[in-house]
C-alpha cells in the first residue's frame, strides 16, 4: 500500500540523520523541509539507508515529487521545477 497518490501535496521531513552518525541518505539536503506535489508513484524499492549497511532492507514506496525551484532559490526562474525521487518515509502530508 502506498500512502500518497499523484497530485498529493507533500512535505519532505526536515530531518538530518547524517548529523547524528554514519548514514546513507538519498534525500538531497536542499529539499529537506520543502513542499512539493507527487507527480506519480514509482513502485517499491529496498531502503538504501539499510542496504548501505547490509541490514535487512524493507521495500518502501518511492515517489516522483516535483518542487518549485524559486521557493528554494528565489533567483531561479518562476515556473521551473525540480523532479526528484523521494522515499515514502521521508514524506509527510502537507
Amino acid at each position, binding site marked *: 500500500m502506498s500512502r500518497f497518490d499523484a497530485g498529493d501535496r507533500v512535505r519532505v521531513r526536515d530531518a538530518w540523520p547524517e548529523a547524528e552518525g554514519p548514514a546513507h541518505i538519498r534525500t*538531497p539536503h536542499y529539499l529537506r523541509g520543502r513542499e512539493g506535489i507527487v507527480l506519480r508513484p514509482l513502485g517499491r524499492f529496498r531502503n538504501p539507508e539499510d542496504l548501505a549497511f547490509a541490514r535487512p532492507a524493507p521495500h518502501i514506496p518511492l515517489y516522483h515529487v516535483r518542487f518549485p525551484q524559486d521557493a528554494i532559490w528565489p*533567483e531561479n*526562474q518562476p515556473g521551473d*521545477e*525540480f*523532479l526528484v525521487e523521494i522515499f515514502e518515509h521521508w514524506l509527510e502530508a502537507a
Partner: protein
Amino acid sequence: MKLTEMPTDRLLEGFQALLLRKGVVTGAALEQSDATMQAASPARGAAVVARAWTDAEFRARLLADGTAAVEEMGIFLTGAPPLGVVENDDAVHHLIVCTLCSCYPRALLGYPPHWYKSAAFRARAVRDPRGLLQQEWGTELPAGTRLRVVDSTADYRWMVLPRRPAATEGWDAGRLAALVRGTDLIGVTIPAA
C-alpha cells in the same frame, strides 16, 4: 601492503574471485554484465529516441516503462536499475543530474562523461540551471518553456526523449538517430536537423 596501495587490477581480480567463491555472483552473470556495458553507448540511446519519433505506440510504451520498451529492441538491462524516460515537449524541457553522486543510465548509454560527475555540474544544475545551459552549452530554451531539473537520487536511471527536430518530415529512424548526441539524452543540449 595496504589495500589502498595494491594495483587496481590485482584488487579487482581478488575481489571478483571472492564474489565467485562465496557465491554472491555467478561467472555467467559477470559476463553478461560486462557484455551489457561493452555494448552501451549514446548511439543506443539515439536509436531508441529515433524509434520513438517514428512509432507513436512505441513512444507510449517507452514513456510508461523504459526498461520493457528497450528490451523490445533487443537491449537488455538485466541487473541494472529500471530505466525511466522523460519527454520534452513545447511546455517542458528536462535536464538530468545526480546531485548526490553520478547516477546515469549506464547500461543503455555507457559511462557518463567526466563533467557529469563533477561537483561543479552537479551543483549548478540545481542552483543555476538556466545559466548552466546558456553559458556552458549555448542551449537556449524556447520562450515559455518550463525547465524541469530531474535530480536522479534513488532507484531509477533517467533519460530524456528530446523533441523531434523541425524539418525532418519523412526521415527514417536511421537518419534521425544520427542527429541525436549523448548530451541531448540528458537535456544539456537540444538536437537540430
